[in-house]
C-alpha cells in the first residue's frame, strides 16, 4: 500500500514536471493539473495511511486522521478553480495573439522595439 501510494505520487509528479517544462500552454496546464493530483495524494498520505477506519477523531482505538482529508478537500477546490482560471486566460491569450507559446516570442521580450504597439493604452 505504501509502495503503491508513494510510486503513484512519484509518477504523477514526474509526469507533471515533464509536461510543465513544455513549450505550449496546453501541456503546461496538463502538467500543473497532474502536479496538483500528486500533491493531493501526498497531502492525503501525510496523515499516515490507515485502511478501513473512520476519519473521526474519537476515543476509538483506530481512526484515520481527519485533518489531511479536510486539507485535501480545500486543496482540490482551490486547484480546480485555479486550473479553470488558467485555462480561460490561456484560451484568451491564444485567441488574442494566435499563438499558444508560454514564452515571449523571440525579439519581443519586452525589450525590443516591437513592443511599442502594445504600449498604447
Amino acid at each position: 500500500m505504501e509502495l503503491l501510494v508513494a510510486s503513484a505520487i512519484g509518477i504523477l509528479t514526474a509526469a507533471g514536471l515533464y509536461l510543465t517544462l513544455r513549450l505550449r500552454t496546453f501541456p503546461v496546464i496538463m502538467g500543473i493539473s497532474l502536479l496538483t493530483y500528486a500533491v493531493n495524494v501526498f497531502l492525503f498520505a501525510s496523515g499516515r495511511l490507515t485502511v478501513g477506519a473512520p476519519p473521526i477523531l474519537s476515543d476509538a482505538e483506530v481512526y484515520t486522521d481527519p485533518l489531511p482529508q479536510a486539507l485535501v478537500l480545500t486543496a482540490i477546490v482551490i486547484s480546480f478553480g485555479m486550473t479553470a482560471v488558467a485555462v480561460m486566460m490561456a484560451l484568451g491569450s491564444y485567441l488574442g495573439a494566435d499563438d499558444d507559446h508560454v514564452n515571449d516570442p523571440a525579439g519581443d521580450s519586452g525589450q525590443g522595439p516591437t513592443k511599442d504597439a502594445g504600449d498604447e493604452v
Partner: protein
Amino acid sequence: MSHWIVLPVILPAILAPFIVLAARYHIGIQRVLSLAGAIALIGIAAALAWQTADGTIAIYQLGDWAAPFGIVLVADRLSTMMVLLTAVLGFFVLLYAVGSGWDDRGRHFHALFQFQLMGLMGAFLTGDLFNLFVFFEVLLIASYGLMIHSGGAVRLRAGVQYVLFNLLGSTLFLFALGALYAETGTLNMADLAVRVAQIDLDGTVGIRVAAVLLILVFAIKAAVVPLHFWLPSSYAEAPGPVAALFAIMTKVGAYAIIRVYTLVFPPNLEATAGLQEMWLLPAALISVAVGMIGILAARHLDRLVAYAVIGSMGMVMVAISLFTPEGIAAALYYILHSTLASAALFLVVDLVRSGRGNLALRAAPPMSGTALTAGMFFVVAIAMVGLPPLSGFIGKLMILDAAISSPLVVWIWAVVLGTGLISLVGFSRAGSTLFWKATALSHPEGEDLPPAPGALSYVAVGGLLTLLIALTVFAGPVYRHATAVAAQLFDPAPYISEVLNTPGKLSGYDASAAAGSKLESEGH
C-alpha cells in the same frame, strides 16, 4: 476576545460581493464604496496597530475553537504593521485608479481590488500555515483578475506566465505543508514552533525538507533570484495601479519568511541551522545585483521599475537573512520604504505612459504634464536608488550597520554600495532620456498630445511621496518601533503561550495523547 482583529478580512470580503451584486453597472457607486472601504480599513488597521504597539499579542479564535484545532488570527506588532502598510497603500492606489480612470477600462476592478486586500490582510494576520496558503490563493486569484484588467494580447500572455508560475508555487507550498504535517501533526505556527523544537536530531530529514520547500515558496513570492523570473514581465505588463498594489505582494513573501523563520524554524534551531546564512544571504545579494544591473539594461521604463523592485526586494532579503534583531529591524524599515517607493514609481510610470503613449527609453517630444511628472520621478528615483536625503538612504544605512557583525560583511557592503552606483546611473539615464532630451525635439505637426493625467492621479502619487518624506523625517520613531517588532519576534514565548493557552472549544484536549494511542494501535 476582541472582534476587531478579523475586521480587516471581513470588511473587504463583504464589500467585494456587494459591489458586484449591487453596483455592477454604476462605476460611481463602486468608486464611493471602494474608497469608503479603503478609508475604513486604514482606521481599523491603525486601531489594531495602536492596540498592539505596547507589545500586546491579541488573538482571535475563529468559531471559538481553541488552537491548534481551530484557526487563529494573531495580531502582534509585525502583523499589524504590515496590515497598516497594506491599508494605506491600498487607499492611495485606489485613489490613483479612480483618478486615472483605470478602474473603468474593464469590469469588476473594485471587487477584485477588495478581494486582493482581503487576501493580503488575511495572509498577514493568520496564525496557521494552511490558512496562510488559503489566503495566498485568495490574493493570487484576485491578482490574476487585476493583472489582466482591461485586456490586450501582450498583457494576457504575461498574465498566463504569471498564473502558471504561481500555480507551481502553490503546488510547492502544498508539498511543503504536507511534509510539515507528516512530521509534526500540526499546522498551527505556535504549535509547530513547540513541536519542531522537540524533534531529536536523528530524525530531522523530513523537517529539513519541509523547511527548505517552505523557504522556496516564500522566495518565489519575494522574487529572490533565481526564482524571480515571473516578476519583470508581469509587473511591467500589469496596469499601472495594479502593479503599484503588487508592490506589497512581494512583501508578503518577505513577511512569511520573517514570521516562519523566527517562530517555527528560528536561527538557533540546530536542525535547520545554516539555511539562512548559507543559502538565503548569497541569493539575496545576487538578487540585489541582478535587479540593479537590470535597471541599467532595461530599454523600457516599466521593465526598469520591475527590476528596481527585484533589487529592492533583494535588499530587504539581505537584511532579513542576517536574522539578527538589528537586521530584522532594518528589513522592516526597508520594507516600508520599498513598498511605498515601488508603488509610487509604478504610478509615475503610468503617468509617463498616459502622457507620452509609450515607455521606450529614447528621446521623444515632450509629454503632457511633463513638469510635474518629471519632478515626481526625480523624487521617487532618489528614494529608490537610496541617495540622501530620502528614506532609501536611511534604510540602506541601517542595513549596512546591521551587517557589520556578519561574517559576510565585506560582500554585503560591496554589493549594496556598488549596485547603488549602478542603479543611480540607470535611473539618471532613464530620467534624462525621458524628460530632458525631450525638450530638444518638437512635436510633429497635426499630432495631438494625449491629455494630461488628472489632478486626482497626481494627488495619489503625491500622497505616497508625502508618506516617503514622512518616513524620512520620522525615521527615528519608526526605527524604534521596528526594533520593538524585532524584539518581539526574537522572543516568541509570549506569542506561543498566548495562542496555545487561550481557552476555547476543545481546549485541554490532548491531541498528542490521542495520537500516541493511535501510534500504539498501529504498532499492534
